[in-house]
């Protein structure tokens, strides 16, 4: 035991004895410090940038249908408590979040992004633009989103929404020029849920980046 004075402590042995007790003290302090930093760091990371488990990802969109049930996982619970939001109950609907376009580029409010296609079957849906903290974004048109009733559709029932900083004819969703935003598509009264494995086949609108300012 005494011989195994590990090299990492030799620097501290100037002047006073590095007996087993001192080594134990250093070791304990070192271990506790690492434990506190790594443990709290992991929690912080998981709750701020991590996305909870059990998500259904379709293209750029991810939804967590389980978060609207009592089967919500502990990470999602902690995240919800931290942000102060209320998850959409599973008997009500499902929310899908997009933070990037289909190519994986983060959504930038200074660029035009075309959202086009159709949504999975739902009685109503809403599309809303938020900043990363979940606040609505101020803009001159006072528009923060569209509902399935308001949207102007193409002849085949699909729709195009231009998400960008400058006014456009048709369905224009203003970004207010913010550098980061996210889109939330909420499907209300929908068969899409945790019970359905059809999630991956459900049609979600494509997000394609166009020109930037």
């Amino acid at each position: 035991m005494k011989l195994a004075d590990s090299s990492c402590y030799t620097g501290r042995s100037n002047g006073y004895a590095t007996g087993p007790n001192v080594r134990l003290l250093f070791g304990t302090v070192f271990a506790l410090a690492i434990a506190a930093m790594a443990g709290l760091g992991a929690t912080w990371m998981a709750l701020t940038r991590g996305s909870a488990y059990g998500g259904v990802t379709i293209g750029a969109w991810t939804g967590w249908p389980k978060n609207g049930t009592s089967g919500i996982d502990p990470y999602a619970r902690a995240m919800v408590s931290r942000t102060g939001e209320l998850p959409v109950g599973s008997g009500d609907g499902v929310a899908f979040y997009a933070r990037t376009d289909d190519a994986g580029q983060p959504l930038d409010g200074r660029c035009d992004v075309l959202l086009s296609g159709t949504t999975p079957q739902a009685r109503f849906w809403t599309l809303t633009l938020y900043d990363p903290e979940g606040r609505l974004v101020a803009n001159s048109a006072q528009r923060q989103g569209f509902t399935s009733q308001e949207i102007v559709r193409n002849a085949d029932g699909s729709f195009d929404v231009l998400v960008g900083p400058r006014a456009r004819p048709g369905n224009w969703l203003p970004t207010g020029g913010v550098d980061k935003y996210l889109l939330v598509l909420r499907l209300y009264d929908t068969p899409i849920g945790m019970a359905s494995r059809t999630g991956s086949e459900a049609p979600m609108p494509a997000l394609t980046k166009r020109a930037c300012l």
Partner: protein
Amino acid sequence: MIRLALWLLGALVLAGIVHLTTVLLLPRMATQDAYARVAAIAPVNSVIPIPAPTPEKALMPFMDPAFQVSVCRYDLSRGALKFSVPISQAYTSVSFYTRSDVAYYAINDRAAGRRVIELDLMTAAQRAALPENEEITAADRLIVTSPTSTGLIVIRALAAEVGWVPAVRTALASAQCRPQ
């Protein structure tokens, strides 16, 4: 080296424990969770409209601006609650959350199948204490069992177009949540 590796291993195990403990305890420690935010503006056992979210101000993050929302912050410790809300023209849903913001039940107007969503909210103990004969008549009334004695009932009604807002607000204004 072995000693250092052992200390590191110990540190990592401890770090794991710290991580799991904080994640599990956070919902109980949070002071700005949705329940706390609602509690700041809503008295117990009454239906209160939540102001629509704006870019400057919103009670909670990620609120859907297409919806008008009312809440009932309930406390079942004195007895069960009767809840009712007339459905509005487009879409109305009622979601139930525990004290720690877990959505344990949600129902929408179509599932309710009537012009009014009506139900009784009670704890498991109160439900077990229901008299036998009431259990029979309970077949045609909806009973929701809350896992916690306090929590939130959130009523959401869609105003799919701006012009619908007043009618939707009127429907929500006659929602009731009162002790039996």
